């Protein structure tokens, strides 16, 4: 595979009041690769993803997607850029007032890629099947589903428009270990099958080992280490060593 940079972050900084969350994040995600960002709670993993998506404007630095600087995009240009993305949110972020299939086919019901309603529904059912849900689920409301099913629906929505880039925000949080493994398997399968570029944030090490091609460790607002997933156990980086082994002692303070 030829390595082409899909997403590049250079010196990305973001502060909220006096709290400096990102102090100069540098990260390069190659096309077709699955990169997982690890780090403790409150270290700015979600802020990093939201900066790439334009949900939060960085104070400094540049973010490029396919060579285009996206950090200052507005309006229609940003919407077009976001067509490349799919995102699975930590809590699912499914729209309560819409049926499951309407959630999955949201882009095909509203946006520039609008399809006739029955075609959009057929596509939603196909995507629901892909994540292991039956067509009967399509006509339920999100509140009628279990946490695991909501994650699957969120995953189906993220992949419905076959995006080039998929972001996963804590995909296994709040799930039992078996369901977490099912979701990890699905993510891996789908990313490989679609050839998509994936960026995941998590502190679940079993997810990391299952999903990642490469791993980046974020702490103190900068990437402390970045490398292939096979190297995370062998690296001598003290941050990665402490995090991977879940040690209370080390450079990462237990109380933040």
């Amino acid at each position, binding site marked *: 595979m030829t390595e082409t940079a899909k997403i590049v972050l250079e010196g990305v900084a973001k502060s909220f009041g006096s709290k400096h969350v990102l102090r100069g994040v540098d990260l390069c995600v190659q096309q077709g690769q699955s990169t997982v960002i690890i780090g403790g709670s409150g270290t700015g993993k979600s802020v990093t993803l*939201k900066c790439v*998506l*334009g*949900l939060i404007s960085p104070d400094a630095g540049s973010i490029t997607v396919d060579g285009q600087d996206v950090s200052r995009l507005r309006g229609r240009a940003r*919407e*077009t850029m*976001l*067509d490349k*993305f*799919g*995102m699975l*949110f*930590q*809590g699912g*972020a*499914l*729209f*309560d007032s819409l049926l499951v299939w309407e959630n999955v086919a*949201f*882009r095909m019901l*509203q*946006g*520039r890629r609008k399809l006739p309603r029955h075609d959009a529904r057929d596509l939603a059912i196909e995507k629901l099947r892909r994540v292991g849900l039956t067509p009967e689920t399509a006509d339920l409301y999100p509140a009628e589903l279990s946490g695991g099913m909501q994650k699957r629906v969120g995953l189906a*929505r993220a992949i419905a428009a076959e995006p080039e880039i998929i*972001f996963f925000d804590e995909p296994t949080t709040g799930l039992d270990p078996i369901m977490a493994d099912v979701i990890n398997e699905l993510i891996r399968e789908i990313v490989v099958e679609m050839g998509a570029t994936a960026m995941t944030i998590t502190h679940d090490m079993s997810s990391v080992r299952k999903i990642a091609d490469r791993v980046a460790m974020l702490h103190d607002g900068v990437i402390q280490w970045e490398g292939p997933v096979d190297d995370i156990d062998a690296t001598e980086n003290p941050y990665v060593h402490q995090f991977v082994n879940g040690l209370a002692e080390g450079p990462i303070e237990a109380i933040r």
Partner: protein
Amino acid sequence: MAILSLIQGFLASIGAAVLGLCQAAGHLTLFAGASTSHIVRPPIYPVELWRQFLRIGYFSLPVVGLTALFTGAALALQIYIGGSRFNAESVVPSIVAIGMTRELGPVLGALMVAGRVSASIAAEIGTMRVTEQIDALTTLSTNPLKYLVVPRLVAATIALPMLAFLGDIIGIMGAFLVGVGRLGFNEATYIQITWDFLEFGDVTSGLIKAAVFGFIIAMMGCYHGYNSGRGAQGVGRATTNAVVSASVLIFASNYVLTEILFAA
């Protein structure tokens, strides 16, 4: 020395409150400007607009209708008492008509809708903010202002005049029932006086007011929900602020509109 620092503290607290108010007014103005500019720019979401129209207009009809009915009935009794002091009981139909159409129909109807709809909009959009549904909309290439705010603003601005018009009719009917059943008015005479006395401008001025109130109600609900703080407490505060600010702005804009329409 102690008195001086007390005075300084007092002045500082007033200054902080004024600055906070100016900041909030600035934020609200920018939000209203951005939202309003999206009304005329595609894409529009007709299904969402219809859904909001039903929710804000149709489902508010019982509460507005009952409020107007009882207000009209009470107004008839009060005007009868006042009128009887100078032998002018016959003014009941005409004063009820003008009072309902120009003032009480739109204002009381809007206050009832503010309590019902502003709160519900703020709670819904606030919950969407807290559960990242608004972020999800953005990642799905959908502008949240267009999808969430514009349909509510347009629906409320159209629905409120309709509700006010129906409220006018129901209020006058409430007064008619009391006038005929309790105060001894002749049915035909009551209707004739009401019809003869009412002018086109009485009704239209009330409807113009109602449209402005509808815009205020939806804007306050959307603004506070969209900028809701985190957690249940944040959503609760947004809901309260939406109802309080909508109610106060309804009264304030009512005076301004009455002055403008009075001069016209």
